[in-house]
């Protein structure tokens, strides 16, 4: 986890499923404690996610919004983007690509 004044960065690694989803939630919650306006979920090394992860993303997005924070997903792989789009999560959470260009 890294941060500068403006944003906290959480690296999400490996697979998010029913087994690892609690750890996924905790790592986001931990970064919320830094109270930065932006929380970047670096998804470069996230190889797999399913509905359990989508549920946490929606939950955390709502929670951060209440606190005036904002979650951004960085560099998700095609399979991750597909799920975000299928479930409509990409309508409420911004996605940025590696270059930094906004999608």
């Amino acid at each position: 986890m890294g941060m500068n004044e403006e944003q906290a960065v959480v690296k999400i690694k490996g697979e998010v499923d029913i087994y690892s989803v609690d750890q996924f939630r905790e790592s986001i919650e931990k970064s919320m404690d830094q109270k930065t306006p932006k929380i970047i979920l670096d998804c470069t090394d996230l190889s797999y996610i399913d509905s359990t992860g989508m549920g946490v993303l929606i939950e955390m997005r709502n929670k951060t919004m209440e606190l005036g924070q904002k979650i951004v997903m960085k560099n998700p792989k095609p399979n991750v983007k597909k799920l975000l789009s299928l479930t409509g999560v990409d309508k409420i959470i911004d996605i940025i690509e590696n270059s930094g260009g906004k999608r």
Partner: protein
Amino acid sequence: MDNITLILPAKPEYVSLARLTIASVANNMGFSIEDVEDLKVAVSEACTNALSHSQNENGSYELTYVVDEGSLTFTVSDNGMGFEPDSVMAPQLDGEQVGGFGLFIIKSLMDQVEIVSRRGLGTSIRMVKNRSVCNEV
């Protein structure tokens, strides 16, 4: 037509074995990378449901893969409490609803889905993915 059966403990840590095995079978069958990813998600969603809704704490559930020339058919069966598939509502895709995506995702990604469920007896969900010719490299 080859049959593979996998019986897993009803514990979250073994769902990855379902993904690992279906990915290996589908890879060997020549499914595209995208299709393999879809199959991993579909089988995981079905396993997650078998675990979450089946109240069968110390039990197990069964997966079967049927390898055919042009398709992979797989089922996930539990001995859980069962439900009425027709009464499940489609999720709202406005990003406000936290749950209820599992069956929707499965139906979106697979070519055929069939659910047989009996209250108190269990649920079996059967999914088919066709190996699309145009996806082949």
